């Protein structure tokens, strides 16, 4: 039992799970789950309790029972007790102060010393600027056909979705994105249909684009991982294996996966050896609220569960991980303020745990959010050193029906913050005459690319 007084009122919390949930900034998903603080004073009381908790107390307690959950067991296996020992008696409040003053090298050494629950805990007592400042010190580099995550690099996933998976429609969006300097993180399509045949068709098409344009980047069809494995068996050109993951065994089961399946997919994809400068072959998406949505949250707040998903991700050395932060809807993240906070938390927690964290900065039409909110999140995450963002033509995903960042947004944030594409991709852009010295798009070069693509585009 934990307690703290604010003013004349004493607030009592029965266990760690309750402290974590009630210390979380207000969000609709925790209210829906019935685990949120019921007043602002109770919230800050929970933060005081959390700030005074020694890290060993958090490490010793499982918010999701060990015997019921393979993610909890994975977290225990990953935890580096030797690296943790010198920190164990620190409090969460002291950890916050340590993080704010730490060097890149010191932050890097924390990745396996801390557990997801500890990282989630400290994030709850950090302001937005703290989350930006610490994450910006932590670079996480990965590679496949180019090097992502380096200093002053902001990559973009080119997301050329089409409502019927039409190859020419997809090609039109790919051309638009390339002309605007996007696609270095991955050219990644969310397919309408999850069947193996159409996944293979898209994979062959993207492989042709890659070959004809000599693009130093990777492609991915974001089908279910079992579909991708079937495509590999058929000999299709798979660069990366994609999967949505969550922070409990039960939510992963609702996605039709478990750790053994991910391992199998990781091995099968690695065996293709299609990377030229590196061998990170996994792409994971996550997002707060998925566990509650699948009734698989064990009464734990949605941000703590999200941080646990990063333990799953890092077990497979991914090239790319992003939270799809505003996609889930207002019953989990109500408005622009809640989406922004969650985006900064997810990015921070992912980075501290050693993940190449990107972000799908996005919203749906029933959330209280608009382009101005996305601009603010984009700038904050740019400052925080986010590895990659999405590039959707005109921000409008015509297949998934939500709004994400656009090619224009990517140009904007790169230019404002002095960032560029992954080095190999930047060389390609310059070699193709696609960028002038000011980094502006060269839409008039579309004809040249179209010609190189030949029958794919027209």
């Amino acid at each position, binding site marked *: 039992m934990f307690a703290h007084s604010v003013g004349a009122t004493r607030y009592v919390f029965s266990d760690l799970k309750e402290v974590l949930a009630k210390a979380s900034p207000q969000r609709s998903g925790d209210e829906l789950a019935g685990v949120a603080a019921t007043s602002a004073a109770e919230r800050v009381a929970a933060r005081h309790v959390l700030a005074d908790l020694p890290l060993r107390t958090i490490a010793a307690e499982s918010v999701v029972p060990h015997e019921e959950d393979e993610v909890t067991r994975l977290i225990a296996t990953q935890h580096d007790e030797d690296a943790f020992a010198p920190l164990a008696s620190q409090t969460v409040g002291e950890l916050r102060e340590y993080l704010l003053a730490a060097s890149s090298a010191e932050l890097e050494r924390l990745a396996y010393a801390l557990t997801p629950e500890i990282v989630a805990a400290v994030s709850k007592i950090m302001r937005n600027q703290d989350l930006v400042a610490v994450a910006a010190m932590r670079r996480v580099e990965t590679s496949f056909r180019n090097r992502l995550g380096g200093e002053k690099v902001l990559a973009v996933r080119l997301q050329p979705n089409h409502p019927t998976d039409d190859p020419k*429609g997809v090609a039109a969006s790919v051309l*638009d994105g390339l002309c605007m300097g996007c696609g270095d993180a991955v050219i990644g399509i969310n397919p309408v249909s999850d069947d193996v045949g159409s996944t293979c068709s898209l994979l062959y098409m993207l492989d042709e684009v890659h070959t004809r344009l000599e693009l130093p980047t990777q492609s991915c069809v974001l089908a279910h991982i079992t579909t991708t494995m079937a495509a590999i068996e058929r000999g299709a050109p798979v660069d990366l294996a994609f999967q949505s993951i969550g922070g409990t065994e039960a939510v992963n089961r609702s996605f039709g996966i478990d750790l053994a399946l991910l391992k199998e997919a990781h091995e099968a994809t690695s065996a293709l050896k299609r990377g030229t400068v590196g061998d990170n072959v996994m792409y994971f998406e996550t997002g707060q609220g998925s566990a509650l949505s699948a009734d698989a949250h064990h009464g734990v707040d949605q941000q703590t569960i999200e941080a646990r998903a990063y333990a799953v991700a890092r077990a497979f050395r991914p090239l790319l991980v992003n939270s799809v932060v505003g996609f889930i809807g207002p019953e989990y993240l109500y408005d622009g303020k809640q989406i922004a906070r969650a985006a900064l938390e997810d990015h921070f927690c992912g980075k501290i745990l050693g993940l190449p964290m990107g972000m799908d900065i996005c919203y749906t039409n029933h959330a209280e959010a608009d382009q101005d909110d996305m601009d603010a999140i984009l700038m904050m995450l740019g400052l925080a050193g986010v590895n990659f963002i999405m590039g959707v033509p005109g921000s409008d995903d015509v297949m998934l029906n939500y709004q994400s960042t656009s090619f224009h947004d990517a*140009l904007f944030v790169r230019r404002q913050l002095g960032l560029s594409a992954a080095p190999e991709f930047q060389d390609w852009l310059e070699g193709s005459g696609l960028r002038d010295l000011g980094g502006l798009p060269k839409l*008039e070069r579309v004809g040249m690319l179209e010609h190189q693509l030949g029958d794919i585009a027209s």
Partner: protein
Amino acid sequence: MSETDKWMRLRAATPARVGLGNAGTGLPTDAMLDFQADHACARDAVHATLDTQHLADRLSRRPAAIVTSRAEDRQTYLRRPDLGRRLSEESAKSLEQTDCDIAFVLADGLSALAVERHAIPLLTALGAIEAGYSEAPVVIATQARVALGDDIGERLRARLIVMLIGERPGLSSSDSLGIYTTWHPHVGRRDHERNCISNVREPDGLAYPVAATQIDWLVKEARRLSCTGVSLKMDLPVAEKPSSLPAPENR
């Protein structure tokens, strides 16, 4: 071929907003305002109030029952999907047992506009098909989620619920109507126990006669197999594809 022509051709291949041009790194003014207009339509559709009495009047001779969920306003509805799945106490009491074959529910969902525009013409298209089944009064429901149909169906003791509900508005369509069929509706039914037809709207989505044919097939199969859900879905007859979306500049 000029640059403009090339982009015109690429734009024709996709409803995506490609080749918008640029002003510095930003969007040209027209493209920016077009997007805002589409978002505004979607937002207005989400927050529109369904005029239930007017809808009931348009049902002409069919009897109607007007109900609401436990979510008392739009903000609560958006935050608490659980409340949108249950009838308010008063509404629950107002529905009488019918032991009917089919009950239709017209629900606002996330777009009252969709129901206002497309529900009556779709019911009319269904008219000829549905003859021969015993029917409950048409239930008009506000602040409703799909699963509110389970609570309604349980109260009516209907064998099958056909729910016409406003879908989440996208930028290109703020008035798409979704149809959900649920066999033996009762509170606690899961989503995989329903069948769904999406994007019913004219002129750009699934046309009323096509949707009506599909609903007719789902109803017959549900009655034949005494179930709805994934087991039916596989055999749904292939419909004509919805006509393609207009190019961005026309939206």
